[in-house]
């Protein structure tokens, strides 16, 4: 009795799920799972309807090739550091500069 009160009217070891369906007749069980199936189907249909009507995210492949631009970021400190080498490059290739 004390236990019943503490657990708010749900006996710890005697709730229906744990008790199983031992006290149901076969027919009752059949009806019950049928109802469950109908409910599940309704939920599925609702989800499908939402998908079709509004919440659908369309992902389409881009028509242009995906290009990943590497080395687009010029590091200024590197440009600064390369000054002497650049001068040498110009000196050694006067015909093209």
């Amino acid at each position, binding site marked *: 009795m004390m236990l019943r009160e503490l657990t708010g009217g749900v006996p710890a070891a005697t709730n229906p799920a744990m008790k199983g369906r031992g006290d149901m007749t076969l027919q009752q069980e059949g009806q019950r799972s049928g109802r469950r199936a109908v409910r599940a189907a309704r939920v599925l249909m609702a989800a499908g309807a939402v998908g079709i009507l509004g919440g659908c995210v369309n992902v389409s492949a881009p028509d242009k090739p995906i290009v990943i631009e590497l*080395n*687009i970021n*010029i*590091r*200024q*400190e*590197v*440009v*600064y*550091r*390369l*000054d002497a*080498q*650049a*001068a040498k*490059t*110009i000196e050694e*290739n*006067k*015909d*093209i*500069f």
Partner: protein
Amino acid sequence: MTRLSIKSFKAAGMAVAAALLATGAVAVHADGRSPEYSAARAAGQVGEQQDGYLGVVGSQPQAIVAMVRDLNNKRRAVYTEGAAASKSTVQEYATATACRLLADTKPGEKYQAPDGSWQVRGASLPPRPAGCK
């Protein structure tokens, strides 16, 4: 007396040879460019860009366009080598060279400003890419 004159003759000859060498060296130093390239630069038909490559200013004869393409291909090859040697990117190496090339433009030659417009080099240093020494 005779020995002295021979000596002085020799000295004079060497001086002339040295002067010839010097002027020759100066000519090569100032201009290793082909006459066509030099002329196009002087005429402002081509100019230095901010990226280390040459640009064709406006519309120019096909020969000029082809020459610029050829020079830029050669420049890219040199930049690629330099980048590999200095563990930098081709773009970075090209930009570092652009810093020098823009600074080295002669008054009257053309350069491309960062906004893309072509300008004539005046007395002052042209605008250059960020990071230039």
